């Protein structure tokens, strides 16, 4: 059967992608960020998963405001790279896994998570920056990807608890797929940041550290954090962290933390990163 073997939490700040694409990774501003991901790239190369489920949010690129799915599951065979307003990132198109995605949709809907089925979709930095951070700059991504787009742009995003429960249902869906597959799941975005209004630039390191600690040791508590607490204490865009809870929910009760990294800043964000293996 297919198994989820690990979860990866990581920021998806667009400036990180731009630094790679423009050959700036050796600049003093960026060296600490990429150094923090060196062990992760090594880990990923050794782990060599077959499939990556990437929980991310679209930033008004694939979805305009005509339709805003709370949970959109990418069922296409291929996902082109979006032009977000300055040209598409020079990275390979993302290959999907339509058969497994279709199976997940059926399993999740019958488990009472009403997914929006997305058969055509461009993917933006929310999905491609995590790929770059963990896989570098290959000619083709060495993994098939199932994108799971979460609305965190228009308030309210789904609650942390809802995402956590959906993560559990994802675990069940994957484990009922009869094929030997190593699956990893990414929770992306965050950590503390605000990129709008006079309060732009807010960072809350204590909040971020507690979140990373809780992810390993006490996710049930994290799942109870109300939306207001993210917005108020960690910045309007920190609500993206609910996507990390979906990742965590998919890992089962016990996990082993194999890597952690935290750094401020990348552009306006606190960069957080964690790798958790399932027990």
């Amino acid at each position: 059967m297919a198994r989820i073997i690990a979860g990866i939490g990581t920021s998806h700040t667009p400036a990180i992608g731009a630094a790679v694409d423009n050959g700036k990774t050796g600049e003093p501003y960026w060296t600490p960020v990429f150094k923090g991901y060196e062990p992760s790239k090594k880990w990923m190369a050794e782990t060599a998963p077959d499939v990556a489920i990437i929980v991310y949010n679209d930033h008004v690129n694939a979805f305009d405001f005509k339709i805003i799915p709370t949970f959109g599951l990418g069922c296409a065979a291929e996902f082109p790279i979006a032009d977000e307003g300055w040209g598409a990132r020079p990275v390979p198109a993302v290959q999907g896994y339509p058969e497994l995605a279709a199976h997940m949709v059926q399993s999740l809907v019958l488990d009472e998570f009403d997914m929006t089925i997305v058969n055509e979709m461009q993917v933006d930095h929310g999905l491609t920056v995590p790929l770059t951070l963990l896989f570098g700059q290959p000619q083709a991504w060495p993994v098939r990807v199932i994108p799971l787009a979460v609305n965190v742009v228009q308030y309210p995003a789904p609650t942390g608890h809802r995402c956590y429960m959906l993560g559990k249902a994802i675990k069940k869906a994957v484990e009922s797929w009869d094929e030997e597959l190593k699956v990893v799941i990414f929770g992306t975005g965050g950590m503390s940041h605000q990129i709008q209004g006079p309060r732009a630039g807010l960072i809350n390191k204590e909040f971020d550290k507690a979140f990373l600690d809780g992810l390993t040791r006490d996710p049930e508590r994290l799942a109870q954090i109300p939306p207001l607490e993210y917005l108020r204490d960690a910045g309007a865009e920190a609500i993206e962290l609910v996507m990390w809870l979906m990742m965590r929910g998919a890992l089962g009760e016990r996990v082993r933390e194999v890597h952690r990294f935290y750094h401020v800043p990348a552009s306006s964000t606190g960069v957080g990163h964690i790798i958790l293996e399932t027990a």
Partner: protein
Amino acid sequence: MSKQPEEYEDIPGTWVFDAQRARKGYHLNAFFYSLMKAENRAEFLADEHKYLEKFPMTEAQRDAVMKRAWNTLLELGGVSYAIVKLAFTDKKSYQHMASKMAGVSESDYVNMMLSGGRSLDGWRSKSERRS
């Protein structure tokens, strides 16, 4: 026809993009979204006012676009991820837009981030500020 103030309205310096704001900003955000295409960016820059006439937004919204009044755009229903496409059209970065919203120079903003970002002190709640 009104509702109780939301708790998040107590957060200083922040316009949460909620359903009411999204409703007011629908055509404004559709304009920003149109800037994802290179030909639209060129057409807009050639005659901003004429291009904006294509979108049934309010005069206040059009005026804020022309003036690059970033915080006003948030207040009038723009969402930052959409608004930033206007900054990109001007060949500016997200950081440039964020510094203007914060009311500081871009280099001061970058330095604030390099020293750990804006502290929550004094920025957590409007009611805490008053007390």
